[in-house]
């Protein structure tokens, strides 16, 4: 095939959008709605996940050392802890801070502190945050094995709960996305089928004058892809506008933010590129394939 031939077929595909504008518009709308449905379900999931992970990050391992540990050893222990697999950050907690923490934790019977003189008796400690909250127990156990560590504790119930929550959310979101994708595929397939059906005679005529299947399909491919790109671009801009509005509303509620980890909602700028790529690629590929696959039935003459 010469370059002029490829140019001709590409032009044909683009012209066909205009010549069949009603059907092209129908395909565009169906693709747009499908992309928005699947896209918003995916974005919802990604944010839920991020929120749950955010909550998990508030989960730390409290490490307290044997009070007899000397200061040099305390410093080297900090590095040792940081080197442990899955450890994200290690913050030193001085005796004084530890004392304040303890005071805060003990709400009842605060009066006891009146009898305690100073905080020298408190051990030095570290607050360790982990990368993967799901492995917090394993990491806690590892830290506890260090000789100088008197106690290492995390709240495994919280980790367990978050893990379970994520599993449920993933399952539900996954099922939702698959269901929406299937519904979308059916809608898209029906629309492209109708669109191609309206032009089945054209396809037959082309076959009669000796056009190969590839020759007939190429404009359909281009047409579907371009329509899909437009739908992808449309879905992107709609998502952008809606996402930003929702993001603003939610993040303005400082209380909500802290309570539900809404602070972990991903700002649109952080995912813009992925959203754009997903929409354009999915739109283009599904549009092109839907259109080409629908021609198959009519090519057999």
């Amino acid at each position, binding site marked *: 095939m010469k370059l*002029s031939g490829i140019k*001709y077929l590409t032009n044909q595909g683009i012209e066909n959008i205009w*010549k069949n504008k009603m059907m092209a518009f129908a395909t565009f709308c169906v693709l747009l709605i499908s992309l928005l449905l699947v896209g918003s379900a995916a974005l919802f999931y990604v944010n839920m996940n991020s929120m749950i992970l955010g909550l998990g990050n508030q989960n730390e391992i409290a490490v307290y050392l044997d009070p007899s540990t000397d200061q040099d050893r305390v410093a080297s222990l900090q590095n040792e802890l940081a080197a442990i697999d899955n450890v994200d950050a290690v913050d030193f907690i001085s005796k004084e801070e530890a004392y304040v923490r303890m005071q805060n934790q003990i709400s009842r019977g605060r009066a006891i502190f009146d009898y305690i003189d100073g905080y020298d008796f408190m051990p030095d400690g570290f607050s360790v945050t982990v990368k993967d909250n799901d492995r917090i127990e394993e990491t806690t156990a590892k830290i506890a094995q260090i000789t100088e560590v008197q106690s290492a504790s995390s709240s495994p119930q919280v980790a367990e709960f978050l893990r379970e929550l994520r599993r449920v959310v993933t399952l539900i979101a996954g099922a939702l996305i698959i269901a929406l994708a299937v519904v979308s595929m059916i809608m898209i397939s029906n629309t492209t089928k109708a669109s191609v059906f309206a032009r089945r005679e*054209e396809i*037959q005529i*082309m*076959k*009669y*004058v*000796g056009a190969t299947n590839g020759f007939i399909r190429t404009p359909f491919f281009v047409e579907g892809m371009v329509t899909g790109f437009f739908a992808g671009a449309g879905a992107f801009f709609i998502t952008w506008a809606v996402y930003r509005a929702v993001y603003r509303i939610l993040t303005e509620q400082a209380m909500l933010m802290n309570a539900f980890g809404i602070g972990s909602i991903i700002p649109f700028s952080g995912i813009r590129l992925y959203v754009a790529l997903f929409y354009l690629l999915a739109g283009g590929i599904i549009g092109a394939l839907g259109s080409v696959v629908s021609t198959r039935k009519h090519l057999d003459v």
Partner: protein
Amino acid sequence: MVELQNVSVTYSSGVDALNNVSLKINDGDFAFVVGSSGAGKSTMIKLLLKEIDATSGVVTVNGYNLNKLKKRKIPEFRRTLGFVFQDFRLIPSMTVYENIAFVLRVIDAPLKYIRKRVPYVISLVGLHAKTNSYPDELSGGEKQRVAIARALVNDPQLIIADEPTGNIDPELSYEIVELLKGINDQGTTILMVTHEHDLVRHFGGRIINITDGEIVFDEVITGTNDEPLPEEELAAAMAEAEQRSDTAQIPADAPPAAAPADAPVTSTEDALIDEVIAALTGENGGAE
């Protein structure tokens, strides 16, 4: 060249559309295929275009054995022939020019050649003024001329026409056949299906009659080359012919009684031809 050897076609519905048909059309021939509706004419055309396959027998067109032709090779084969159908089969979203140029695009012809060749064939069919019109903006006769231009733009060895005059005014039918005759004069083989006996009578040539899926008549007759007769005149001519001829009824399977092609054309002979056609096609000549 077209050759059918003992070809039968049975549709999946069980209808035997063609029954042991053998036929040979040589390069450069012009042949009419006549026969009543449902006789199997279009079935034969579909065979020749490889739209359907023979149930048995061998079909050879332009040197391609269609029985053995691979799917992949069908486009290549179809490029060696042109087709003209009753329903025109133009692409509605393309202009006259684009419809015709498309055939050359398919074979990846150089753009320069397309730009010269397409206007040339458009002028051959006298549609220069309609070059940029869409099919919807054309009359039936004009549409069919576009279809003919498309059929010949690729300079095919063979043009197959299935009732090309079926959807256009009778007066214009003659123009269409004239056009096909002109193309035939340049060496292209033409096979034209029709049930308009006036046309056949007028132009003459090789007449193949298919009745109930069988070839019952295959002879060369001389055309009258008359202008189409009005209905009454035709009826009168028929009556006259019946009187003159001893055998008013010719059995369908009797050997053809047509006069030899080289005999001088007389009015008696014309009438006889009428009658033969009428009898063989099971219709009243000209009543169609």
